[in-house]
């Protein structure tokens, strides 16, 4: 069987094979090569712009926001999934649907909505002014917007695993005398590992790439609210192509690393069910 599948395609299937390869090359390989080519051609200029304070700050903000999102989503994702999967309450269906909203909404709309809450004439403005806190057009807005768009990933992945694993191991732990705390750390959390890793990877990818929401709510102010993506946008606007190419290549490299990381995990092999037969 394996030999048959691995054999070189023949006839009509050879045509399909060529089509698929051409399509993937056109969409994936060519743009990436073009980017690499552009960077290599302008390498001294690219290097200079990437070493600028603006570029460094944009990267740092993106990195910081991504790390914060990973941490927040890790905690909230596990807690949220436990509530959603294990508890039965009348608003469960509504909550279940709401969690996917960030996937359905355009990020630009999200940014706008956040502005209406935290912006100059936003509903929370009096409270924030009273507290002396600035959110809109400051880094917290970038964090909030990114948290919003990355909310579903970890929660959904963890919920999926939680559903699959069931609660019989936790019941077994209880009959063996484990406290709820011991059960959580020693049984529940280790079982969620696969979901957490995939969820975190998706969260990271989304946090690094988020553009629309952080542009609207943060305003892409250099050294303050400019992220890697809005930095690219600003560089293109200002006809600073080498800066845009350089930053784009960094993001592309990060994305490829993430993908390789996920490939290396191969969850289908790692997730070995103890009960499966």
């Amino acid at each position: 069987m394996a030999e048959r599948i691995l054999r070189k395609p023949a006839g009509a299937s050879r045509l399909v094979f060529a089509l698929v390869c051409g399509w993937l090359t056109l969409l994936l390989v060519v743009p990436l090569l073009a980017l690499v080519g552009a960077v290599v051609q302008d390498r001294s200029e690219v290097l200079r712009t990437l070493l600028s304070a603006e570029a460094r700050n944009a990267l740092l903000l993106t990195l910081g926001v991504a790390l914060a999102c990973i941490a927040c989503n890790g905690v909230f994702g596990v807690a949220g999934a436990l509530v959603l999967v294990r508890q039965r309450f009348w608003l469960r269906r509504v909550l279940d649907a709401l969690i996917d909203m960030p996937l359905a909404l355009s990020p630009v709309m999200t940014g706008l909505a956040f502005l209406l809450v935290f912006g100059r004439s936003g509903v929370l403005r009096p409270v924030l002014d009273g507290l002396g806190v600035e959110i809109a057009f400051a880094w917290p807005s970038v964090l909030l917007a990114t948290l919003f768009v990355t909310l579903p990933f970890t929660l959904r992945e963890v919920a999926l695993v939680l559903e699959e694993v069931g609660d019989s191991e936790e019941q077994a732990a209880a009959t063996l005398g484990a406290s709820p705390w011991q059960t959580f750390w020693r049984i529940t959390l280790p079982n969620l590992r696969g979901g957490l890793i995939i969820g975190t990877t998706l969260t990271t990818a989304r946090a690094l790439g988020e553009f629309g929401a952080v542009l609207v709510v943060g305003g892409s102010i250099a050294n303050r609210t400019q992220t890697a993506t809005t930095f690219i946008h600003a560089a293109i606007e200002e006809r600073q192509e080498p800066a845009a190419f350089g930053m784009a290549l960094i993001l592309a490299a990060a994305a490829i690393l993430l993908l390789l990381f996920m490939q290396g995990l191969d969850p289908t092999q790692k997730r070995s069910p103890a009960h499966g037969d």
Partner: protein
Amino acid sequence: MGIEVRNLVKRFGALTVVDAMSFEVQPGELVALLGPSGGGKSTVLRIIAGLETADAGQVWLDGARVDHLHARQRQVGFVFQHYALFRHMTVAQNIAFGLDVRGVPRAEQQRTVERLLQVMGLRGLGDRMPSQISGGQRQRVALARALAPTPKLLLLDEPFGAVDAKVREELRQWLRRMHDAVGATTIFVTHDQEEAFAIADRVMIIQSGRLEQHGTPLEILDHPATEFVARFVGDVNVLTGRVHGDHARVGPLLAPVSGLPDGQEVHVVLRAYDLKFWREDPGVATVRRVMTIGDRVRVEALLDRAGPDGQPAPIFAQFPRRSSLLHGVEVGCRISIEVTRARAWPGVPPEPAS
């Protein structure tokens, strides 16, 4: 550990799964909860363990009421139907878990694990993951894990349901030996009557959330308390008859019964091994099939005038393969039938067991 259950009630929505059930188990007994699937057996077990909360009623362990205690405080060993082994832990870590969470020192944990691996025939498997061992081995790991903290009460939910027939037979004998060696009170749930009768000291027959009968295997086989028990236990024929004195008349047959008023319409339950067939013309029945099943022979026949409106009704019996009664019995021949033992219940029969 002695157990007493008083008036236990459990409902899931509109469905009453356990219906006012009461029973006692003496310390050191091995008891089977036997009945058709969905009868509430597992729920009773889970309530005793504290994994499920009863809507009414009480559970007493060793003379103390435990309804308010969480599962972890009851010190009851529980073996789950699908093992519920900790999938990210090795076999040894699984077995040690109950000791570890109680703060037992490492060295002592290790000794207990080694001893249990030895006793369970799992030597050398301590470092394997649950996914790397067979179903029968997983079952034994689950048992070892439950036994490690030396519970005084061991509860097993369909313990041998998920392994094949041969392994099941081995594990069965092995459970009996374990029980006799350890001495913990043991209750196991099963829908397999052979399993229940083979190893239990006492059997509780449970149907639709009710305890139908509680007794030794022999008591239940020879003195079924209800028509349900009589029908559920063993291979039986159920035919309609009418009482005449100390017999019930079923078509041309006379079945010995007692304590029923003359003329009463009854359901007569006839065990496959309480009937004698022998070739005789004209006789009372015609043989339809003869099947050899291992060391036994099953003979199916049509009994004259025993069905509704005087139609013939099917009846079957089983004999040892070399039984002299089988001499000349073949498909199409006429036979006579003698009923050596029968039970009869008045009225409409309950739904036959699945």
